[in-house]
């Protein structure tokens, strides 16, 4: 960040035009800062002392002065700048007023030390980042071998598959082998027609004043998986039909959750 982008220090000798001019320059600056901590660090640097000896009280005042000026100029500050302002105002009061024996929480000095630590740490990381980027770097200062062709390649083919592939394949196999059209099957008697299901449902829904699991409407044909499939399908289709007709309500809490049915209250 160039020096002329630095925010104004409130202890500038000149008031009026100059400070106003600089305060306006701040508008540009706020965009240049990466958040309130960044701004605070810039302010701290202006104290031109070791960061460990920076005056947090002066810093808080500068920051609050900055926020005040921004408000006067109707510059909208992001929420985190205002949060920091509130915290610094609190810090200021803690630093200025003696802490009573009953006061809870850390002292002003502790809070100040904590903030000074954060500033020092951020500054240290900035300097380290600069040192890191200034190092000799691969592809810029030193280079890898340009020719990468000494390897005589022996080609080997390997195969891969994901767990999803596996599951989808298996699910597909199952649907393929089990969902054979029922009318082709020898167990014709296992087929539960839509008509049968509708009649059965109509007779039963009167009892479903509260939510009932759909499975309780399915006729019991234990031991015959294909039969169960047919009865389930028909019962479900019949349920949808009755929902459509306004005689039934249907719901499901989530994928694979039980489907529940309830008779629609016709009095409404």
């Amino acid at each position, binding site marked *: 960040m160039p020096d002329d982008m630095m925010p104004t220090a409130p202890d500038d000798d000149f008031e009026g035009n100059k400070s106003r001019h600089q305060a306006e320059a701040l508008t540009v600056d706020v965009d240049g800062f990466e958040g309130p901590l960044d701004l605070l660090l810039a302010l701290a640097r202006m104290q031109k002392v070791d960061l460990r000896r920076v005056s947090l009280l002066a810093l808080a005042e500068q920051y609050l002065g900055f926020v005040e000026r921004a408000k006067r100029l109707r510059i909208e500050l992001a929420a985190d700048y205002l949060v920091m302002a509130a915290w610094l105002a609190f810090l200021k009061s803690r630093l200025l007023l003696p802490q009573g024996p009953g006061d809870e929480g850390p002292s002003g000095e502790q809070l100040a030390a904590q903030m000074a630590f954060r500033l020092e740490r951020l500054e240290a990381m900035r300097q380290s980042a600069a040192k890191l980027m200034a190092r000799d770097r691969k592809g810029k200062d030193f*280079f890898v071998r340009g020719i990468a062709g000494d390897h005589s390649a022996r080609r*080997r083919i390997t195969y891969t598959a994901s*767990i999803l592939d596996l599951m989808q394949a298996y699910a597909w196999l199952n649907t393929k082998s089990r969902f054979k059209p029922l009318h082709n099957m020898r167990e014709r008697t296992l087929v539960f027609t839509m008509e049968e299901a509708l009649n059965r449902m109509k007779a039963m829904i009167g009892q479903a004043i509260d939510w009932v699991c759909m499975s309780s409407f399915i006729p019991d044909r234990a031991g015959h998986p294909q039969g169960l*499939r047919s009865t389930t399908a028909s019962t479900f289709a019949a349920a949808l039909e009755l929902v459509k007709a306004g005689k039934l309500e249907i719901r499901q809490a989530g994928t694979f959750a039980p489907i529940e049915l309830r008779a629609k209250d016709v009095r409404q």
Partner: protein
Amino acid sequence: MMKQSAASTENPFKVPSLAEQERMIEAVLFASSEPLSKLQIEMRMSHGCDIAEALVLLRKRYEGRGVHLVKAGDGWAFRTAPDLGFLMQKEQVEVRKLSRAGVETLAIIAYHQPVTRAEIEEIRGVSVSSGTIDILMELEWIRLGRRRMTPGRPVTFVVTREFLDHFGLESVRDLPGIKELRDAGLLDNRLPHDAEDNENRRKIL
């Protein structure tokens, strides 16, 4: 050494020493993606370098080493010593997606293990080519299990530790979705890894 390099970087007009020239050529040839002719090397170096001599020195330096400075046509390049070629036989692994037959067969073995070839064929509805089994064996995703105690004593297939590692599973019981598949009615309610049970199940079907 420090003095030499300082000379070459700080004073571009001074001709580097022969040793420094050798060093420079070494770096240039190493980093170049293609062999460089004398002229090409010269163009990169400071004026007044007589690189012919430096090249001779450099070539000598690498004599008998694992890397040689070789001349091909008018180009110079570093090459690994021909007698060490065997070290450079890098296996180039080409990864392909497992075929549908492969995935299906693998899935059946995982969910139904131990399972015989005839059972796989019955579930898939088509015969299983030995190529498919071979690939799965080679990948070390399946191995032979115990022989089934039925006429013909057919071999069974089971999945391996390697399979579990590849698919990130602790055990076959962790096969994700097995519960969901079952809830969705896509799977039989019986435990898939119980051979006895599988036998029975297959009789019913």
